[in-house]
């Protein structure tokens, strides 16, 4: 019995009797519900199948169907298919029952729906604004009735009221949005008792650029470049996630050579960012020599990127149907030689980092995120794997050419800064293995499928394991090479909650290294 029949039998009042004709596409099943209440089915998925609620997001279909839709994406361990519940919310009753009290992982996501669409998450334990700052006027930018180019009046009122922290000798330390280092903007409000941190409050969305709304305003071939600008350090991962969504929606078969080339470039992005992070973690505990070597190595990978794609950060390479340019034999040799060289140097870099007892002392037991906390908060990616969350899209929902190359997914239970670094070290080594195998494998053939018009009205989900973690793109296509909606979920959205947990009880001087060990994307969060 398939899932739809089973659900229809178990929850006849909840599952809609009419399902969309395209309800099952590659690796995803979409199930239409009768109303906005998904609590019973979510409960059933989680208790009966051990499913994970991957993402929650909304869509404005008021003009066509007089409803908003909430989408709930579930994943079941060992099952490559995503299950997407589509829950209609009548335009005249703009509210839906919140799941956040039982599933803290959707805390921000439900509040985003409140801010973007003006749909109230009834029963949310903390329904304050998250995506729109408190001094924004009462607008809901992702509603179709809100014009993209609307010029909003200047700021008025209080920026954000932080929870007060009281007690003898307790202080609040505000940091940001303009930080001391060369990093992205966000606001951190620490409550400290002497050195130890009692409580951290975050304020994100300083770099909100209206990205999701912009996707609705440009043709798909331009939107690929917008996807590359969601988070500049993950340009290729986000670009690939976006192109895969379009390919799924329009049944485009990506040629094998293109899939192998994408795999190689995705791994190069991982290697170059992980090496950078290992160096940055060393810097934040004062081991700058290690960072000098790491950043030198990173530069070698970045130059290889340029030799392979014409861009140091792999931009302008991925396109719908494959990749824009193919590789010559000389480029393939460049890939092999550089990977061999970087691999040798990486071993001596790690030996250097591990030779320092004082470095280890600073990293071990610092910023611990316990596995049970990580699971509840829905932490993904590197941060999750260092805290026992055994998830990796490359293995669980294979895409590109990952099904062709065996690799190991490192998982640790300790959850401290050291182990977040060790996950990166292990992953870089696995990436080298994938890169060797893929470079030898690289089959001949076309590097891009012939262009075809994108059919309107199709929905598709796409997932990519970026170097930080699980990246999701969901699209609904529109007539004329356009999009009705594009939802982007960067792994950082879930993972900020992990930093709040991990810093508690640590001294404030360790905050930079704890933050760096997560290295989340502000721009990916804020969009």
């Amino acid at each position: 019995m398939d899932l739809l029949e089973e659900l229809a039998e178990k929850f006849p009042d909840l599952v809609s009797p009419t399902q969309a004709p395209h309800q099952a596409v590659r690796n995803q099943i979409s199930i239409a519900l009768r109303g906005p209440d998904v609590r019973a089915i979510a409960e059933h998925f989680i208790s009966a199948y051990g499913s994970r609620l991957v993402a929650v997001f909304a869509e404005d279909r008021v003009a066509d169907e007089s409803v908003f839709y909430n989408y709930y994406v579930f994943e079941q361990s060992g099952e490559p298919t995503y299950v997407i519940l589509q829950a209609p919310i009548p335009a005249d009753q703009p509210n839906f029952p919140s799941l956040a009290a039982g599933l803290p992982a959707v805390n921000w996501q439900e509040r985003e729906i409140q801010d973007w669409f003006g749909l109230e998450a009834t029963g949310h334990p903390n329904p304050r604004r998250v995506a729109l700052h408190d001094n924004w006027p009462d607008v809901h930018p992702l509603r179709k009735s809100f014009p993209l180019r609307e010029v909003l009046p200047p700021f008025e009122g209080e920026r954000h009221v932080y929870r007060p922290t009281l007690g003898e000798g307790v202080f609040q330390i505000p940091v940001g949005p303009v930080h001391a280092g060369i990093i992205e903007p966000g606001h951190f409000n620490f409550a400290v008792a002497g050195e130890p941190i009692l409580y951290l409050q975050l304020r994100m969305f300083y770099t909100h650029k209206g990205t999701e709304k912009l996707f609705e305003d440009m043709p798909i071939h331009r939107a690929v470049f917008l996807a590359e600008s969601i988070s500049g350090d993950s340009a290729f991962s986000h670009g690939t996630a976006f192109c895969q969504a379009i390919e799924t929606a329009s049944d485009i078969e990506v040629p094998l050579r293109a899939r192998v080339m994408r795999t190689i470039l995705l791994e190069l992005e991982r290697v170059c960012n992980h090496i950078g992070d290992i160096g940055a973690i060393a810097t934040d505990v004062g081991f700058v020599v290690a960072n000098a070597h790491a950043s030198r190595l990173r530069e070698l990978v970045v130059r290889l990127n340029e030799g392979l794609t014409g861009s140091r950060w792999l931009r302008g390479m991925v396109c719908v149907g494959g990749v824009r340019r193919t590789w010559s034999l000389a480029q393939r040799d460049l890939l092999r030689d550089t990977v061999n060289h970087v691999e040798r140097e990486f071993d001596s870099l790690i030996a250097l980092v591990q030779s320092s007892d004082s470095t280890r002392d600073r990293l071990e037991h610092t910023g611990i995120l316990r596995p049970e906390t990580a699971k509840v908060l829905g932490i993904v990616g590197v941060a999750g794997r260092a805290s026992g969350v055994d998830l990796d899209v490359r293995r669980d929902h294979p895409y590109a050419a990952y099904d062709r190359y065996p690799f190991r997914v490192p998982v640790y239970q300790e959850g401290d800064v050291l182990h977040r670094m060790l996950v990166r070290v292990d992953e870089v080594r696995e990436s080298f293995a994938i890169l060797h195998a893929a470079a030898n494998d690289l089959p001949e053939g076309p590097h891009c499928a012939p262009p075809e018009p994108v059919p309107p009205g199709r929905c598709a989900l796409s997932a990519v394991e970026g170097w930080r973690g699980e990246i999701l793109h969901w699209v609904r296509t529109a007539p004329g090479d356009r999009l009705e909606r594009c939802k982007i979920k960067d792994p950082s959205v879930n993972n900020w909650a992990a930093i709040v947990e991990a810093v508690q009880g640590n001294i404030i001087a360790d905050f930079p290294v704890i933050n760096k060990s997560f290295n989340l994307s502000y721009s990916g969060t804020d969009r």
Partner: protein
Amino acid sequence: MFKILQETLITGIATVAYPDVPAMVSAQFRGRPEFDFKSWRDARPAADVCPTGAIVVSDVVGQADPEGTPPANRRVTVDYGLCVFCGQCADASPEGAVRVTTEFELATYHRAGLMLVADYSLNPDGTHRQFIAEYQAVLTAEDVGNQLSEAVHETLGRSLAIRQVDAGSCNGCEMEIVALNNPIHDIERFGIHFVASPRHADMLLVTGPVTRNMELALQKTYAATPDPKVIVAVGACGISGGIFGTNYASRGGVDATIPVDVYIPGCPPRPEALLYGILLAVGRL
């Protein structure tokens, strides 16, 4: 300790000598697209594929024409301040009128200095009949006044403290700015260093687009930086808003919020391009 020294000695000097010797640039690198306006037979396909609207075709309609014959004249504007260097304009212009070069030293004092303009008369099918004229966009008096004075160069030239401000970027430009500090580019060899506070800074290196949420923070950072100060806008988004443009959440380029002295194109600009722009700003080229 011995191991650390040994590792460093084995590695030797990694630093490049740019700008004294040319930068190590791969032949694949996509730098400035070069336009041969005279042989360009149709600019429309390039304008069509350009992701940021850096190539704009505007046809001048004379009299309203009931026959529907195409307009007589066309102005093509190319704006390197919007360009993300994807190279699609070259692919879409098969007669070789657009060529991607490896040039990256594009920083200028003037926003208008990044623009090229060409005029054409047209055939009935909308292709170019005759090339009329090509010119750089005219500098206004305001643009010229923008050029930094000798006095500022004199004061800031030898030792420069930079405060980097991310006013809403995607983090792409930040990664290249961080790379300026690595042993390969090593910006400290010029006496240039990054500081933690605008109060210690001579230069603000600002990436964009400036978001509505960062506008106030950028204004406050500007006010906190002592005079004389130099403001540099980095990347397509910092110069013009880039692919984000202006919308309900984005104010566009940096110069819509604070005055800018030097513009560095790129998406993101490579470290040598940043270095070129920074040295240009303090008169050390």
